[in-house]
């Protein structure tokens, strides 16, 4: 008997090992093959071949160039006359009377010469545009009654000019010019975010850092009755182009949503978790109901809660905070009750042996064991909810998420979009850092590590 068993064992073992090898081999080739097959399916399900057609690379180019540069519009109104110069062509960025950009020289009432980079140059005289392109020559565009005439130095029209009888569009690396019946317009691109600090109507516009610093300490008040530093702060804060005030408020709203939602959820979930924990709740039915409640609240996604709540509360930070609160009550309840089930009974017994009443038992026997776990989870969620609050803000309309979606929908203020993106990233990283610092401070109880 024993010998037969011993003889069988190695053979069995060998077979077993072979089976294991076979399974391993299958897994190590099968899993990548399955993933690859899935990607092939996704490739066609998402219509990636058709993506190349739908992709608007010109949009991408606009986006990238707008994100780090700005353009100044020099516009002649061909119907009513008059020359205006405006950053990004916006009302808020229009140069006031008597102030012109440094690359423009006025040559008459309705005429101006515009210096463009790389040897390009443009001249507007009334409705007539003269555009000089190095190594090509001078393009002249005239508006004659209802037609637009184009004079080129060559016979054929190059592909960077699109011309019809109602519109001429010249796009060059040095700048862009558009002539229609309504207006003759030249765009000059420049690197940077113009008017970021001060708008054109501010006396501090165009001053260097050194000049501003000396102004800040000087006694001569630029705006009578207001200190220079206060005036600078006021002009920056109320910058109509970049709206620093609104942006900062939006960031604050977003953080507020995350803070109220996360902390509120923790406060609501803590007592409920006691009901759901097996070692604290005597009624199995109450436990079951509470757990299903947590599952339900988590299962009804944040998206659905946001939609439901935005109907009741309207757009704003309160809606976002409540949506986070409700969703996270489920997650916290589940995690807290699991943590409660893992507490050490010995400490509770110790507290009980000194004659503590139930509430005191919880306070001194349970809470101290729980605090590190709870705090670390709550702080982790605080950081991740800052991101969620951005998304929720985009749906309900509040905070930086709203500003971002608005800026993207207008499809032209890409420098503002990149400004918001930078701010969002900084905000999330700040919250990440803050929650890390708090976690170390509060949980290890001191500076070490």
């Amino acid at each position: 008997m024993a010998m037969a068993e011993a003889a069988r064992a190695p053979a069995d073992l060998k077979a077993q090992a072979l089976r294991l090898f076979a399974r391993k081999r299958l897994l190590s080739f099968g899993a990548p093959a399955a993933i690859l097959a899935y990607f092939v399916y996704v490739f066609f399900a998402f219509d990636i071949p058709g993506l190349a057609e739908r992709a608007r690379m010109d949009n991408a180019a606009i986006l990238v160039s707008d994100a780090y540069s700005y353009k100044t519009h020099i516009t002649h109104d061909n119907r009513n006359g008059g020359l205006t110069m405006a950053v990004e062509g916006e009302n808020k960025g229009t140069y006031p009377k008597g102030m012109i950009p440094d690359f423009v020289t006025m040559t008459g009432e309705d005429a101006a010469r515009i210096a463009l980079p790389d040897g390009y140059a443009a001249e507007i005289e009334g409705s007539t545009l003269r555009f000089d392109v190095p190594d090509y020559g001078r393009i002249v565009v005239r508006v004659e009654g209802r037609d637009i005439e184009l004079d080129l130095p060559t016979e054929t029209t190059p592909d960077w000019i699109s011309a019809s009888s109602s519109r001429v569009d010249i796009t060059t690396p040095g700048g862009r010019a558009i002539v229609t019946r309504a207006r003759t317009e030249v765009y000059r691109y420049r690197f940077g975010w113009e008017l970021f600090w001060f708008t054109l109507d501010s006396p501090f516009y165009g001053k260097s850092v050194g000049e501003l610093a000396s102004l800040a300490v000087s006694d001569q008040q630029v705006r009578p009755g207001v200190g220079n530093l206060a005036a600078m702060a006021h002009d920056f804060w109320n910058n109509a182009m970049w709206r620093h005030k609104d942006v900062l408020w939006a960031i604050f709203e977003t953080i507020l949503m995350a803070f109220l939602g996360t902390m509120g959820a923790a406060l609501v979930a803590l007592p409920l978790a006691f009901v759901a924990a097996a070692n604290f709740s005597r009624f199995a039915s109450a436990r079951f109901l509470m757990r299903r409640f947590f599952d339900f609240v988590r299962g009804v996604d944040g998206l659905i809660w946001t939609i439901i709540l935005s109907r009741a509360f309207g757009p704003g930070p309160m809606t976002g905070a409540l949506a986070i609160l409700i969703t996270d009550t489920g997650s916290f309840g589940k995690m807290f009750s699991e943590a409660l089930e893992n507490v050490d009974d010995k400490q509770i017994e110790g507290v009980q042996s000194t004659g503590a009443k139930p509430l005191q038992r919880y306070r001194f026997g349970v809470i101290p064991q729980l605090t590190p776990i709870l705090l670390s989870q709550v702080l982790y969620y605080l950081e991740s909810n800052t991101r969620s609050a951005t998304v929720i803000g985009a749906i309900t309309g509040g905070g930086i998420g709203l500003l971002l979606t608005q800026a993207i929908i207008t499809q032209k203020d890409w420098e503002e979009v990149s400004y918001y993106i930078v701010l969002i990233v900084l905000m999330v990283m700040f919250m990440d850092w803050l929650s890390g610092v708090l976690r170390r401070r509060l949980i290890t109880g001191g500076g070490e590590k």
Partner: protein
Amino acid sequence: MADQTMSGADALGGVDRIRENYLAMARTRRLYGGLMLVVFIALMASGFIVADERNAGGFWDGVLNIFDFPAEVLSEAREKIANLPGLMVKFLPSLVETLNIAAASTLLGAVAAVILSLLSTRGLARYPALIGVFRRIMDVMRAIPEIVIALVLIFVLGGGPVPAMIAIAFHTAGALGKLFSEVNENASLKPLEGLESVGATWPQRMWLGVIPQVAPNYLSYALLRFEINIRASAILGFVGSGGIGYDLRNAFSWGQGRYDEVAAIFLLLFLTIVFFDQTSSHYRNKLVGRV
């Protein structure tokens, strides 16, 4: 600490002093605790007031109306209850698209995360000098909310599932990368030394020496991420990418008369999320060896 262990000459006075010190410390501790509680309550209360002021509808009005909308949806859904199964079948393809976005982005993100995490773990990194750089890259990837990338890509690529997939994958790579590198730190280096001694290259060492050790933890985190990404891809659908979120927005902005569709989508989404929650938590527990 050191100055308290003095000679036993005045042991009695020492005990008194220690007790006094202890009580003083307990008092300051309690004071700090109380102060922090007061600050916290003040923050919560003022935050609540500010949020309430800046909201379009007030909190107290809203609380009373909170069930109005669900009641409307439910009553309309009850009227047209016969439509529900049909509608759920109708929205199934969108649901599959949402799931596909989540799955593809989790896979792509996880692959990127594995590489990033290996490059940013001390002891494993290919270029030890660049560990900090790769960590910062992951921090930034984690910090950018999906919606930002999705909205920008929708502008360039047009609507559809691809912007959402890229956006979620990008964020996933950062989030998983951090978790993976924490796992990597606990991996034993002995198999690596063995492999190195027989002349294995860096990719071989990682693939044969590290991955088998950490694969269960990787998988467990990736499953958790998949759950999160299902929710994220539903939300991104709502702001313009494809999937069930997009259908939900259409039905929702149509308003009354299409609430049966809203109900059907709510139900589908709810069931899907609960199903994947339960399945993934079951397998996660199995993977990391808990009951």
